[in-house]
Structure formats: C-alpha cells, structure tokens
C-alpha cells in the first residue's frame, strides 16, 4: 500500500508536530509563549498560559510537565527545553495583568452550577463558566480555595501568595464561594435546584499500612497526606529527629523534605521498588537527595517495632526484582537477614485513594466495581445527567494540569447540557496557519538554532532553605537565563509546509537539512519507506509528511521526528515549495470567553 499524501488540513497533523503542546493535557501553545518570553513580552506570555491552563504561576513551579519528556529538543541533544520553568518566568515578570482578565458577567443566563471542592478542576470549570453568565457556587470543606494545591504541596515549592493570586483571579470572576462547607449529600445538593453539579472533590484519602505494631505505635505513625496538610495549615510544626518515610512517589518526596525542615536531622526514604521504578519525578528525587536524604531501595516494611507504646523503628525485608514467566517484574525475598531501622517517627506515603461518602448510591449515579463513579472519558458526565466529574475525583489521583484539562472539558459539557445541546458535539479547535516569510532569508521568528545546553534554575542556599519551611527553594530564572533558555526552543509550531506543484526536485532542501529529514524517493508502504529514507525514520510515534507524486513520479517524504524548524529548507528552495508557517491551535473552551486571539 502506497502512502497517501498527508492531509495537512486535519488540525491533528501539525498539532502532533508541536510535541509539547500535543503532550500537554490542556494543549497549551508552548512555543508561542516561549517566543513571547524571548521577546520580553512576559504579560502576553502569561495570558497565553492563563487562557489554556489557568494557573501559570502555580504550574510553573509544580507541574508534572508531561511536555518536557515529549519535547523535540530532547531528541536532538541531551535535555528538553525547560518549558515548565519558563512558564514561571512569565508569571514572575508579568507585572499587573488584572486589566487583561475577563470581568464578571454583567448579565446572568439563569443557570446555576454547583462545584464540589475548590481544587484546580472546579476552579477551571468556574473560570470557564462564570464569565458566560452562569451562576457558579463553589463549596469546599476548607476555609480557602485551592484544594490540594494549598493543602498538600509544601510552601517551599509553592509560596502561598502565588496560590492566593491565581485562585483569586478565578474567584474574582463573580464566583460565589461557600467555604467551610462540606457537602454530605449529593442528593441534597441536587434538590437545591442546581442545573448541574460538578464533583471536583479530589482523591482525599491516604492509604495506610496495616502491619504489626501499627496500633501500638500509632502516636508516631502518620499518614503522609494528612500530615502534609496539617503542616500546611500550621497545626504541626515539629517532628522527631530520626524519620523514616515509606513510599517512593511525589508525596514521599514532599514528606521527607518537609520533615527535614521541622527538626528531622536523619530523614530516610525507604522504598519497596528499585530507584528507577519509583513513581516520584526524577527532579523530586534529585532535590531530596540534595537535602541529604538517603533513598533506600528494595526494602519492604514488615513491622513497626515499639516499646512502652512508643515507636522504636521499622523492620524491613530485603527483596530483589525478578522478571516472571509473563514478563512482569516481581519482588522476591533476597535471602538476606531483615534490617531494623530505628526511628522516632514514620510517615506513610504509599498511595492515595478516592472516597465518595457524600454521594448516595441510589440516585441513579452508577459506581463501578472499584467503587469509582462511571464517568465518560470525553464528556466527563456521570450516569446522572446533571452530575459531572473531573480532576482526581474522575479517574483517580493524577495532577494539576490534568485536573485543569478535565475542568475545561467538563465546562464545555455543562454549557452544552444547559443549552440543551448534544454533549458529543464538541466544538472544534481554533486553528491558524500563516506564512512567516518576511524576506529571502528573513523570518518573523528567530530561526537561528541555539547550541546552549539546558540552564539549571538557581536554588536557594541549602542552609537557608532548610531553616524555614516557607522559604522557596527554587528561585526561578533571571531574565538573562530565561532569554537563553527560551532560545533553546526549536519553534516546532513554525511548520514546514510543502507544495507539490512548485517543487522542481532540485535537491537543495535535502542537501541543506542539518538533520536529514527530507528524502525524494519512490512511494511505498510506510513500514518499508521508513527504512530507506536519508536517515531511517525509527521513531514510530512521529509522522511522515508525504507529498503527492512529483514530476519524476517520486514523492517527497519528510520525517517530522527531529526537524529543527530552522527554515533552511525554505531558504534554499528556489521555488518556494517549502514555506515556514506558524500553526496556532487553541483548544475550544466553553463559550471561549477567556480566549482573546
């Protein structure tokens, strides 16, 4: 089967080429804001973010950044662009943007929406719907908005004023808040006559470790996420000197680093799995180890030891990883003696679960066999027509950017439902494609590819950081570093657009391409074609751009994988068959009230 010419009118084609944007759950137009940062237009860069992801200052410090492993730069040199930390630059240097935010709706549309929980998912729904005239009421058991952003993420990673500012932008859109109000009946809430209810209640329950000694030593064994929120709200200000943190995820990393700041001088993280398999992000592990916290692997807790009702330590079994017949990793007893590690306190950070005690099971809202609500992956509607879910409450614990992405989609659904339209009729994205040519060798973007390696974000002096749990560790890029880091971005959204009719097959583009992307060859089946390009196209996640038949009956094939978007093919082309065109895609939002393009 010969390959058909690529249909570049399908917005997904060029969207996929912008790896970072494609990977971002909220599809933030990353290169667009990075260019604005390089141009010194921080407020504009902030607004591009704010429209897409609602919490640029928060995410610029805490995002799980799925965009970075996807970033094309990471495939042509050692490290991806520091996309996340550039987002923070936009937030740090934006100045006063209040005048650019939408204003509360002047007229109501008569529809009332209840949001349960004031975490990022609910706040996104509120931001999208309030300016459209919906009467939005947010309920939260806590006294302030932000959800786990406020209750869980330690202040040394995310200062309180950043949360206040960005949660404030949303609440100032005319959103009614009912804080210190825990909803204990969904039925009751529905009975209040809301047109829709959004459950953004998170995954609030920390998993416990039921082992011998758990009861007896309970006073010094703490559930990680409960302990972190007590620390966040100032209820806990100290911990023992010797602390063991059980678990290998990001919660464990926050626990150990918080313990180091509250009097823990010997804090150790102990993990069942190997170091590589730990769930924590690589940078979180690096930061913990930098604070003198050893991470010990392949140790499974067996027992909490205690004396006179006081915890004395934890007993561990040593294990090793083995691959079983089915190719699965299994932990096996290593055949070595157990290890006892003395300690004063234990923080249990072995997982997080959903809990919906406030939802009645007899109101037409179905739960599955894991006791999770049945939620549509696209519309976020439950089996109850008026009830929607998003964030950690929808499909289990994820992260902030997923909560935002869910929130946007749920808001679209709620808007459609309230207008009596089909939820499946999702609005298409807004797409712009425009030539960037300014002259023979001149483009409206900076096509000179930087050779700089990734810049490291400066950190606070360790002694100062460990002395104050509120002292932010990362200081953020200064403007010089930010510019240089921004220049590392390859502008993957400036797309190479090929016109079959103009090409005279002179080979100039093939010869100049620094990464051997382009081949003129006989057409063929994709798998076979991939092997006989100028550079074999081995990355199957990246598309081939294929032209129609040219004069010599060959086709042009471009492997998108490592294109530097340098525009040299277009500069070299004598006929303009290649052009560099900026592709801007804005994912549709409810009513698009927050988009100003």
């Amino acid at each position: 089967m010969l390959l058909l010419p690529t249909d570049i009118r399908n917005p997904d084609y060029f969207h996929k080429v912008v790896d970072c944007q494609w990977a971002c759950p909220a599809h933030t137009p990353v290169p667009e804001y990075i260019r604005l940062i390089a141009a010194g237009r921080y407020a504009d860069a902030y607004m591009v973010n704010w429209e897409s992801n609602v919490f640029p200052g928060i995410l610029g410090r805490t995002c799980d950044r799925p965009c970075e492993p996807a970033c094309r730069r990471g495939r042509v040199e050692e490290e991806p662009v520091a996309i996340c930390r550039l987002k923070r630059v936009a937030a740090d240097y934006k100045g006063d943007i209040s005048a650019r935010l939408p204003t509360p709706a002047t007229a109501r549309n008569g529809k009332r929406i209840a949001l349960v929980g004031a975490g990022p998912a609910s706040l996104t729904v509120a931001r999208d719907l309030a300016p459209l005239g919906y009467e939005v009421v947010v309920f939260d058991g806590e006294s302030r908005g932000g959800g786990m952003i406020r209750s869980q993420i330690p202040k040394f990673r995310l200062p309180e004023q950043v949360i206040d500012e960005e949660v404030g932008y949303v609440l100032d859109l005319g959103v009614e808040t009912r804080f210190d109000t825990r909803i204990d009946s969904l039925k009751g809430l529905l009975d209040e006559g809301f047109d829709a209810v959004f459950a953004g209640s998170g995954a609030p329950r920390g998993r416990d470790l039921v082992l011998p000694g758990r009861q007896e030593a309970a006073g010094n064994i703490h559930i990680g996420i409960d302990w972190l929120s007590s620390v966040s709200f100032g209820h806990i200000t100290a911990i023992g000197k010797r602390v063991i943190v059980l678990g290998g995820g990001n919660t464990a990393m926050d626990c150990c680093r918080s313990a180091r700041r509250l009097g823990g001088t010997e804090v150790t993280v102990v993990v069942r799995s190997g170091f590589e398999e730990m769930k924590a992000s690589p940078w979180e592990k690096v930061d913990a180890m930098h604070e003198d916290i050893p991470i010990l692997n392949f140790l499974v807790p067996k027992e909490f030891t205690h004396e006179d009702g006081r915890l004395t330590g934890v007993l561990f079994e040593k294990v090793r990883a083995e691959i079983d017949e089915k190719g699965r990793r299994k932990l096996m007893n290593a055949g070595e003696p157990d290890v006892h590690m003395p300690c004063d306190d234990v923080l249990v950070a072995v997982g997080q679960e959903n809990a919906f005690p406030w939802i009645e099971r007899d109101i037409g809202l179905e739960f599955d066999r894991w006791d999770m609500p049945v939620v549509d992956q696209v519309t976020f509607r439950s089996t109850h027509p008026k009830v929607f879910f998003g964030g950690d409450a929808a499909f289990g614990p994820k992260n902030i950017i997923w909560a935002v992405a869910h929130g946007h989609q749920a808001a679209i659904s709620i808007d459609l439902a309230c207008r009596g339209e089909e939820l499946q009729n999702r609005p298409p994205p807004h797409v712009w494609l425009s030539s960037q040519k300014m002259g023979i060798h001149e483009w409206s973007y900076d096509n000179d590819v930087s050779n700089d390696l990734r810049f490291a974000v400066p950190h606070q002096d360790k002694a100062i950081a460990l002395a104050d749990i509120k002292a932010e560790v990362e200081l953020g890029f200064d403007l010089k570093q930010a510019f240089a880091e921004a220049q590392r971005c390859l502008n993957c959204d400036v797309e190479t657009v090929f016109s079959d009719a103009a090409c005279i097959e002179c080979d100039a583009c093939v010869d100049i391409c620094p990464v051997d992307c382009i081949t003129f060859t006989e057409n063929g089946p994709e798998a076979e074609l991939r092997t006989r390009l100028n550079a074999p196209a081995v990355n199957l996640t990246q598309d081939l751009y294929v032209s129609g038949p040219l004069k010599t009956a060959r086709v042009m094939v471009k492997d998108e994988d490592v294109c530097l978007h340098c525009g040299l093919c277009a500069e070299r082309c004598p006929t303009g068959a290649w052009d560099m065109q900026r592709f801007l895609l804005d994912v549709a939002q409810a009513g698009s009230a927050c988009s100003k393009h």
Partner: protein
Amino acid sequence: MTFLPKPKLHHPGLAANTLGFTRRDYEGTISTLCAGCGHDSISAAIVHACFELDLPPHRIAKLSGIGCSSKTPTYFLGNSHGFNSVHGRMPSVLTGANLANRELIYLGVSGDGDSASIGLGQFAHAMRRGVNMVYIVENNGVYGLTKGQFSATSDKGAKSKRGVVNNDEAIDLVSMAMQLGAGFVARSFSGDKGQLVPLIQAALTHQGAAFIDCISPCVAFNNHVGSTKSFDYVREHNEAVNYLDFITEREEITVDYAPGSVEVVKQHDGSLLRLRKIAGDYDVHDRAAAISFLQHRRASGEIVTGLLYVDQEPDDLHGYMNTVSTPFNELVEADLCPGSAALDKLNAALR
C-alpha cells in the same frame, strides 16, 4: 536573518566512518550560491563521497578557478587544503601542487566557462599529461557568476532566458577528455546523486586524470524552457549507459544480477566498480567506440551519462616522468644536491 550558519545539531543516528568523522565533518561553510543551484548538490555529493571513502580531510587538496562553480570549494571539505586560483588556471596550479607533493588527493573544481573558454588550453594539458586528480566541471552552460552569458558548452540552438539563440557550436569536454587521453571519463547530473556519488568515489580512487562533466542547472539564468541544461530538459533527455556501485575491498558483493548486466572493474587500489549496465552493449574500455557513440547520441539530442571510459591500466604524470616516490617537498638538500664529485663526473661526461 541572513545566511545563518547551518545548525550544529544533527540527526541522533548520524553515522561515523572508520576515522570517527560524520558526514557533517566533511561540510564547509554555508553556501552563498542561489537557492536551488545545481552546484550545491554537487558539493553535497562530494561530501558524501569523501565521507564514505573514509578520506582524511587533511589529505585532500581542493583547487578551483573563478566562477560560481569555482566558489564551491568553500562550501565543502572545510578541513581540507584549498586554493582558489585565477580564471581558467586551476589545472596548472594543481599540476604544480601535485608535482610538489604527490601524496595528497587532488580535487579540481571548475566551471564550463572556466574550463571550456579561458581555461581550455589548461584543461587540455592536464588531461593529456595525466595529472593524478579528479577534475569536475560543474556544467551549467552559462557564465553564472557574470549573470548568465552563454558559455562554450552551451548547445547550438539553445535559448537564453531573454530569448537570444546561441549560434556557436558547443564544446563537448567529455569527448575532448577522451581524445586527450584521460584515464577516467564520466558524465552525470547534479539532480541524480545515486549516479553521481559513486562516480566521484571511483574518480577519487582512480590513478591519473579522472574527468567528470556534471550537468548542473543554473536556477537563476539557465533553467527555462529553451535551455538544454535545465532540470526538465536534462531529465527528459538523460540517457544513462550505466549506474555504478563503488565497493571497497572490505565489502563483499552479494546481490545477484542477470548475466551480462553487470561488469566488475578492479582499480589499482583494490577497490571495485560494479557497473550496472543499462545500454547492454556499451563498452567502457573502448575509447574510440565511446567517442563515436557519444557523437551519435549527441546528434540525436540525447545526453549520455554514466561511466563512459575507464583505462584498466592507468598511469599518471609522475609515472610518465619517472619521479621519485618521495614527494618533492620532502626531499632535503642531501637528496637534491649530489655534491661536487658527482658534478665533476657529469661535466667530464659532457666534454
């Protein structure tokens, strides 16, 4: 922004040759020729050929005359020796260099104006002397650098961009090279690297004068309807007599071909040229027949390409002159000055 340097970043899978160099290490600075110029494709082919032959860049000398074509040595082999001589004088400068140091690999790059007009005599003598070199003419049928006047290789009846007809007979450098005794003669097309790269490799490993006439469309002045050196015209009239695979001693021949369709030519350095014949009866070792074949095809408007002639027992200028194997530039006074006793002896012999 104008003329950026080509980004240093390269494909993660970019291969290295046995010297540890990648193809990118054989590039030069970025070309300043017109976008789409055939000459740039020839530069790229030279880069490919030298990379694949594992040639140490510092053992290559590239020499040229004047013209767009003669500018190209700046755009390839940035780590090799270079000499940009005066118009039409590349052959004599190269001959001198070759005499002084026979151990370098000599690559002469010229244009149709540079070689067929002002430098025609120089071209002729380099061929007949058998200077050990690769002589590439980047043939676009015009003086590109001086804005597109007809050159001496422009076909009679060809039209210029402004519609003027060329009434002069064209010089066919390929036929001349054969007549003058070049040991290796080929013609190719800048738009066909599959043919050109192995030809350059074969020429680089040939001993003696190896001549390649490479048709190279000038996109600015000679790529219009009415031109006989345009992409379209050359593609339509290209009559390849063979394609070549260049095989080093290390590689084995494994592919099976129909009997009679392939001929293997062994070169003096042990490398093999596998000729995939297209015109089955074409004999690359018969100089006289080749000249006649070329004349006939030319009369019927065809452009014959491929390896056209190769001498199976080649020799070169140094062989004809019986020079010492040590390069002249390494000979010291003791080697060169035989002393007064020897002089007395010589004088006595002449009395």
